[in-house]
């Protein structure tokens, strides 16, 4: 079994505060793992650290075969992170944002067009500045950036927040589709029923540590959305 994420006694500091205080976690390639826990448990820091945005101060941390203690930049091109912010440029159109993100990740401009279609950002919406979109549309655009980048590891922080029912169903299908194609997904969510339905495993965090997890189980079947 190849591991996409392997953490051992991993510590990450926010200033002097250990937001991750010795995390042990294995995530196999192709798994969809739900990380649950109360506010301040360290879920967001875990995702940011796995994305190479927050440094590991001690312990072992390997993501997609890269040792993040040595180099946390090399892995970034293979990661898609959906955070609380959308990471979009307000003044650029949806199409501009997606094409920039796709080309920066080494993907083609065509993948940006396909991602917009997959997320329902069709027609006129493509040429609308992100600042003029509704919160839900901005969230869809942020998800579309991840789809366009075609990452090997999806890190999703409260992915259902701000999406309408159709958007949530679409996101769930995209996550399943990505896992079917071999990508690994780690998502943090407070909407446990919704997120657990797409996860093959759930781990629990508290006080900056992983304190418990459920055994792997197959994800419920649902027709995935395929992005060519």
């Amino acid at each position, binding site marked *: 079994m190849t591991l996409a994420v392997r953490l051992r006694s991993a510590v990450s500091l926010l200033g002097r505060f250990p937001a991750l205080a010795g995390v042990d976690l294995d995530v196999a390639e192709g798994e969809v793992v739900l990380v649950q826990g109360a506010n301040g448990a360290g879920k967001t820091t875990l995702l940011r650290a796995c*994305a*190479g*945005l927050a440094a590991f101060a001690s312990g072992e941390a390997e993501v997609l075969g890269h040792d993040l203690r040595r180099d946390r*930049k090399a892995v*970034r*091109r293979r*990661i898609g*992170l959906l*955070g609380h*912010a*959308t*990471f*979009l*440029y*307000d*003044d*650029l*159109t949806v199409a*501009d944002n997606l094409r*920039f*993100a796709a*080309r*920066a*990740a*080494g993907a083609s401009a065509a993948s940006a067009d396909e991602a917009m279609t997959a997320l329902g950002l069709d027609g006129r919406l493509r040429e609308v*500045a992100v600042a003029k979109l509704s919160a839900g549309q901005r969230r869809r655009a942020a998800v579309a*950036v991840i789809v366009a980048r075609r990452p090997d590891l999806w890190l999703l922080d409260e992915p259902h927040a701000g999406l309408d029912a159709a958007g949530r169903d679409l996101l769930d299908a995209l996550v399943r589709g990505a896992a079917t194609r071999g990508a690994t997904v780690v998502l943090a969510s407070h909407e446990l029923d919704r997120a657990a339905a797409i996860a093959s495993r759930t781990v629990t965090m508290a006080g900056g540590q992983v304190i418990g997890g459920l055994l792997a189980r197959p994800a419920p079947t649902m027709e995935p959305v395929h992005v060519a």
Partner: protein
Amino acid sequence: MWRDAALVAGKDLRVEARSRVAINQVVPFALLVLVVFAFALDSDRDTLTRVGPGLFWVTVLFSGLLAIQRSFVIEASDDARDALRLSGLDGAGIFLGKALAVAVQLVALEAVLTVGVVVLYNVRLHDPLLLVLTALATTVGLAAAGTVYGIIAAGLRVRDTLLPLLVLPVLAPALLASARACEAALTGAPGDGWPWVRLLFVFATIYVTFGVVAFGPLLEEA
């Protein structure tokens, strides 16, 4: 690196083209500064003509600061700076791209201000080669140094007020050199201007090199 630079420069210029901040705010501000100086010194036309080069570059510097600040404000909204880190783009490429975008805006600004100086200050342009090389070296140096200090200030809450405090002392030698070089060109003594142009190219080379090497680590810390 060059591909990344072109990508970032294209993105930044597209942001400016769509937001029109440079056209609607920076250029009018720059012209306003020229007009204010013209009103203040109008009673002495000779003085205005003599100090024209210095006023021109002071105006470029102040307006350029707005363009540099703007270059990093767009990365601060909605955590776009994290997106830039996650993009996998080369740090040197990001630096060159952002500096190039600022430089393009400065060149456009200088073109507009040149017309303003000729009209308002009654300045006659001589020795175009010296003037063009002075403008080129100053623009590259200003854009490179501004981009370096822009990323240093970017992660701080007081970035808007800190950036001018950091940048203005650093750019003072370049301002002096460019004013002297232009003065030499306009007074018909180009021989006096070339040493200043060489100094400007040294200044630009130092900051471009420093930015290429240091921007990546600075972006990580911002």
